[in-house]
């Protein structure tokens, strides 16, 4: 009993190595695995480590709610053993390209977990999620004895199938190396990408290829390090794009046997070759929109358009920019500059309905264009904020009052308030005095051209000053129109009384 004999209670699986002192061929071994709570028994043959052909397998697997399939691989040698491994199901082949067994290591591969993980292999393939049947093929790639089997276990039925069919005696022999980027070329300046080197092996006795990842065991070089460099320390094979252009990424791997033959029951290599490969990769420039807002105001007033800025940054610098908008609700002061001023020509009908695109070309190589969705806003109405502030002046040289009204500025579409920070946008007023009481009073109107303050508000001065006490029946009626950046935004009726002005809003209201 292995459990009690070797203290293996905690081990779900293991390999058994038996030595005997009798003459060769005098012992036949068999091992049976018996599940204690059920009547499940799995019988397995024992192999002679000296059998050179112990090194490959091709076995079926099956998965259903009652059935599990496990592949076991055991390195019977004293050196690490690389394994080429492929799983076939539903017409699709899935590769494990980095399977290596340490000396005397036994590895179990749960095929259900392998299927359900849905991780892609180096060819971007997965085992079909619904696959229930297939086959496992494995091939040792080093001349180290490896033993393997697949066990399909149906627990409730008490049935187990154990397969250890072999297919080829000698290790796989090297054919070629493929070097490929992790994502794809061309790659953008400043970006990194893991490049992989994969060697293809075929069974010496013929058959389909197996693959093994040689990235970590290769020496990497770039034919032009001003275009990209390649890491030879962890992470090995990492490509770093540094400049626009094209270069070759080369990986030189270890020497591998490319021709095995059997002699005296032992696999021998008749030819070794240097492994390696290369791939061309071009590096293209990049461009990003790095400054500006996701809106622009419709106005031709320079104090407004100064805020309609968008800035792109190409890498490397010194290339050519080209801006465009779709639909063409804005024009550009200089569409070939990195920093551009937009002039809104027609307002948006919905938020973010206009796409800005900037193309960038460096040394004839185009970058992937950068885009930004914006809204072309148009100033629409003013809304008074708080009540009118009045400071009375009671002489001796000035009588009347300083009066101020605060307005918030709103824009369409959606009636959005213009946020803080849009200082200095020209605000013009047209004031007409309609009537003055008492008669004989003369009024001089001083109209000031103002601007939005730092909170993007309009702080409207409505002061009335005289050099004498105001008559108690004073009433001045006036009409006032206001415009911001040349866009009409409000009409008021102003009524000036001795105690202060009143403001009646005549729209627009939205």
């Amino acid at each position, binding site marked *: 009993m292995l459990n009690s004999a070797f203290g293996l209670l905690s081990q779900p699986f293991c390999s058994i190595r038996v030595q005997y002192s009798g003459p060769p061929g005098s012992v036949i071994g068999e091992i049976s695995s018996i599940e204690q709570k059920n009547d499940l028994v799995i019988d397995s043959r024992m192999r002679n480590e000296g059998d050179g052909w112990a090194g490959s397998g091709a076995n079926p697997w099956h998965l259903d709610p009652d059935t599990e399939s496990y592949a076991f691989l055991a390195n019977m040698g004293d050196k690490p053993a690389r394994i080429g491994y492929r799983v076939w199901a539903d017409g699709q082949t899935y590769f494990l390209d980095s399977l290596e067994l340490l000396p005397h290591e036994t590895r179990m591969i749960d095929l259900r977990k392998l299927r359900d993980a849905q991780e892609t292999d180096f060819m971007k393939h997965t085992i079909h999620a619904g696959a229930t049947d297939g086959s496992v093929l494995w091939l040792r790639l080093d001349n180290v004895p490896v033993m393997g089997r697949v066990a399909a276990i149906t627990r409730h039925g008490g049935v187990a199938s154990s397969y250890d069919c072999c297919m080829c005696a000698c290790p796989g022999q090297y054919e070629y190396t493929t070097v490929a980027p992790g994502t794809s070329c061309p790659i953008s300046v400043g970006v990194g990408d893991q490049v992989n080197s994969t060697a293809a092996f075929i069974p010496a006795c013929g058959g389909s290829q197996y693959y093994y990842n040689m990235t970590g065991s290769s020496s990497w070089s770039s034919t032009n390090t001003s275009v990209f460099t390649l890491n030879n320390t962890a992470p090995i094979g990492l490509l770093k794009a540094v400049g626009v252009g094209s270069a070759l990424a080369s990986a030189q791997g270890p020497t591998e046997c490319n021709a095995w033959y059997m002699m005296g029951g032992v696999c021998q290599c008749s030819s070794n070759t240097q492994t390696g490969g290369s791939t061309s990769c071009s590096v293209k420039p990049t461009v990003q929109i790095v400054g500006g807002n996701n809106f622009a105001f419709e106005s031709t007033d*320079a*104090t407004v358009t*100064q*805020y309609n*800025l968008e800035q792109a940054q190409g890498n490397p610098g010194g290339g050519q920019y080209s801006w465009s908008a779709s639909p063409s609700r804005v024009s550009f*002061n*200089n569409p070939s*500059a990195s*920093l*551009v*001023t937009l002039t809104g020509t027609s307002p948006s009908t919905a938020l973010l309905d206009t796409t800005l695109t900037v193309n960038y070309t460096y040394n004839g190589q185009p970058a992937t264009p950068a885009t930004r969705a914006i809204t072309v806003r148009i100033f629409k109405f003013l809304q008074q904020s708080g009540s009118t502030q009045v400071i009375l002046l009671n002489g001796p*040289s000035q009588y*009347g009052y300083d009066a*101020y009204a605060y307005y918030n500025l709103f824009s369409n579409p959606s009636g959005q308030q213009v946020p803080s*920070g849009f*200082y*200095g946008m*020209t*605000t013009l*007023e047209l*004031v007409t*005095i309609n009537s003055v009481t*008492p*008669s*004989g*009073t*003369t*009024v*001089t*109107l*001083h*109209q*000031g*051209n*103002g*601007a*939005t*303050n*730092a909170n993007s508000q*309009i*702080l*409207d*001065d*409505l*002061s*009335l*000053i*005289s*050099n*004498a006490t*105001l*008559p108690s029946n*004073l009433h*001045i009626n*006036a009409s*006032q129109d*206001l415009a911001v950046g040349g866009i009409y935004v409000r009409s008021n009726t*102003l009524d*000036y009384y001795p105690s202060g002005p009143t403001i009646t809003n005549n729209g627009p209201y939205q």
Partner: protein
Amino acid sequence: MVSGKIVPACMLLLTCVSPLPRVKAEQGHAFETLRVALRLSGDRVPLTLALQQLGGAIRGGYVLFGIEIQTVDRKEPTVNLGIEPGTALGDALRQIFNEVPGYRVEVISDHLVNIYPATAKGDPNDLLNMLVPRFDVVSQRAGVILSWPERFIPELYQRLAASKTSGSGQHIDLYVGAVAIGPEITLHLRNVTVRQILNAVTEASDANAGVEAPVGWECSYEARAAAGRGALNTWRLLTTLPPDWKEHVQKTEENLRR
């Protein structure tokens, strides 16, 4: 609000006067260090609008203008703009004023530049040369002062009122406009010209900028008006700041609270 102080006029203005087309630049002054970031183009652009566009296109700092300008039929001189990104501020001004000969540019301080007709400073009828014995304002918005200086300078008010037609009844002045921008400032000046007052207000707004932005000034008048042309003078605050001006104002905690 800043505490007021009495400042002699001679200390207010440390100037270097340069006739155009050559714009003298002091070593390290904004004229040399500031660059235009945007292409400025346009035909027959009114002069003050051109200066506003220029100020708005600068990056790395800002410039304020105090400009005295002669109009003809209420129209400013116009210029053709063709300024490329990267142009130094001094070169850009030279390009602009090459098209309007007869003006001078004077660097008043790090941020303030005066522009005026070459003959203006020697003209006794120029209201900006009028001497004011005392000027006192407490916690007033710079924009209001620069828009209607006569409200705060009685001598100027009298000079302007003298040219107005007056009826038999009480006279009332209505001041209307969105001019109440810029920081609140406090100033007490003695024996200064109107021009010096306007410059002092702009510099005080610059020194106290934080939440509120500093403001420049403009005074225009008809070129063909008779001597004592006060009635035709128009005052206006002038905003010429780039969108990133806040990054370049004097960063004191007091300013940032304003």
